Structures are given as structure tokens and as C-alpha cells.
């Protein structure tokens, strides 16, 4: 992660944040765009979940990792506390690997 990439991401993010307080009396964001941006957030995060869980480089990540994510996800749906969710996922993957699953 080069410093330049962090700087560009930070500058762009700050511009998104500052636009409202600075231009509040001159521009209005259409409701439709507002809604689309929030759906886009969910779409990107879900795609990241899927690719990070299932793939490694350009191939399959093996079974242990997606199984761990699935275990964590099941707990998250049941509103388990966040640390429990994450630790359960990592532990499931670690145990499956210990048992010889790739």
C-alpha cells in the first residue's frame, strides 16, 4: 500500500465529506443518487466478502477458509457479539486446517 495511494484515497474521502458543509446552500443531492450510493456500498462489501472468502490469487482458496467465514456469518445472523463472530471464524478455519483440509 504505497503512501501515494493512501494520500489519494484520503484526499478523495475528505472531499466527499467536506462538500456538504461547504456547499449546503447551493447544491441538493437527489434522493435517488443517495439511495444508489448506499446500495453500491453494500454491493462492493459483499463482493469483497465473496472474493476474499473463496479465492486466493486467481484460484480457489480451499475449503477451510470459506467454511470459517460461513460459521462466522451464521453466528452474525444470530446477532452473536462481534468478537465471538470473528474468533469463531478463525478458529473454525484453523481447526479444519489442523485436520488436514486445505
Amino acid at each position, binding site marked *: 500500500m504505497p503512501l501515494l495511494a493512501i494520500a489519494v484515497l484520503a484526499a*478523495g474521502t475528505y472531499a466527499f465529506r*467536506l462538500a456538504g458543509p461547504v456547499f449546503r446552500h447551493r447544491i441538493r443531492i437527489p*434522493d435517488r443518487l443517495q439511495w444508489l450510493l448506499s*446500495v453500491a456500498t453494500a454491493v462492493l462489501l459483499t463482493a*469483497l*466478502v465473496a472474493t476474499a472468502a473463496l479465492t486466493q490469487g*486467481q484460484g480457489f482458496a480451499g475449503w477451510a477458509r470459506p467454511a*470459517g467465514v460461513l460459521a462466522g456469518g451464521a453466528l452474525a445472523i444470530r446477532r452473536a457479539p*462481534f468478537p465471538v463472530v470473528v474468533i469463531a471464524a478463525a478458529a473454525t478455519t484453523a481447526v479444519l486446517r489442523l485436520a488436514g483440509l486445505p
Partner: protein
Amino acid sequence: MRSFWRTLDHGSLRDIFLVCLADAIVGASFGAITVSGGLPPWAPITMSVLVFAGGAQFAAAGVVLAGGSPAAAVLAGLVLNARLLPYGFTVADTVGGSRWARLLGAQLITDESVAFTLRQHERRRRRATFWTCGLALFGCWNVAVVLGVLAGALLRNTGSFGLDAAFPTVLLALVLPSLADRGTRNAALAGAVIAVAATPFLPAGLPVLLALAGLVLAGRPAATVADTNPALEAR
């Protein structure tokens, strides 16, 4: 600052404290996962202070750790943070009138601080809520990331600890609440299928961006945006 504390009731302060605690755990995970994944310690710390947006930080770091280009990482982060644009307009009057208040307050605009601010109706309490929540989150988040980095540096051989499963799980827990909306869920699932299917053929980072094609399945807003903004939950 003291008058702020007196303006807020105990219930609000307790809720803000709980959110800080939850975010601190996410922040510590971010520090630990990125460093044990191979990023130098300064990278997650710098990112947390300057970008200060959990979802985008995880996304950008995730793309880079998967071997993607920095440009793809920045693009993914910016698409995620575009939702901060409407937030800024929503809380513009609350952030403050003076130039310094606006410059400083803008950095404190997050899913959480906006959600908490919108729960208050009286102007003075709104301001107090925004600044208290924003500053508290900024402090907790960055301290937690540093602690996470220190912990992550101690962990070697992340595969045998199953830490590679922690990253997607953190994101899944963050995004789950927003998938309760059917249109959002359809778009997100289609996007996920597209991204995974494209992974063998495209350079890392691009498949995730291609997932945005799933937006065509999102349909129309279910109700008024203020009531159902899914991103208010997803960070």
C-alpha cells in the same frame, strides 16, 4: 466540551460508548489483519487517521493484500466512501458555522456519527451529539488500530491461526444489516457472483469493481431514504 457532556443524556452517552467499543474491536482487527497480512505497520495507522472510514480501509487494504494494483484499491475505497457525500449535506448545519469547525468536523462524518446525530431533534443536542460521537470514535478507532498493529506484528504464520478467514468475516458482519432490504440483497448477491466468476480472468481488484454491475438488480428505493438508508448500518 463540558457543556456538551451536560447536554447529552445518559442513554445517549451509553450508546455512544457502546458504538466506540464495537468500532474499537473492528479497528484492532484492521490493524492486526493488515500487518499480519504483510503491510508495513505505518500503512494501517496512517490510513486510519487520514481516511478514517472502516469499510473503505478494509476494502483498499484487502485489494492490495490480494495482489491488486494500488489504483484499484483507491477506486474501491472511493466508491465505498461516496456515500459520505450525502451524509455531509445531511449534517451540514449541525457540523458548524465557522470555517475551522467545518474543516475539522468534516473529517468526523461517519456512518455512526451521522446516525446518532439524526436521532436528536433539538439543534443544540444535535451539535453536542455529532461532536461527542465524532471525536470519541476518532480517538477510539485510531488507538485501537495501533494496538491491533502491535498485536498483529506478534503473529506469524497467519494461515495456521485461520486469520485469513477473519478479514471476510469482519466485512460480512458489517454488511449483513444492510442486506435485510430485498433490492440491496439481490444487487449484492449478483455482484458477488460476478466478482467471483471474474476472478480467474481479471487482475486482482477489478472483479470487485465489476460487481457494481449488480446494481441493475437493485430496483427502486423501498421507502424514504432517511428511513432505510442501509449504509447507515454498514461500516
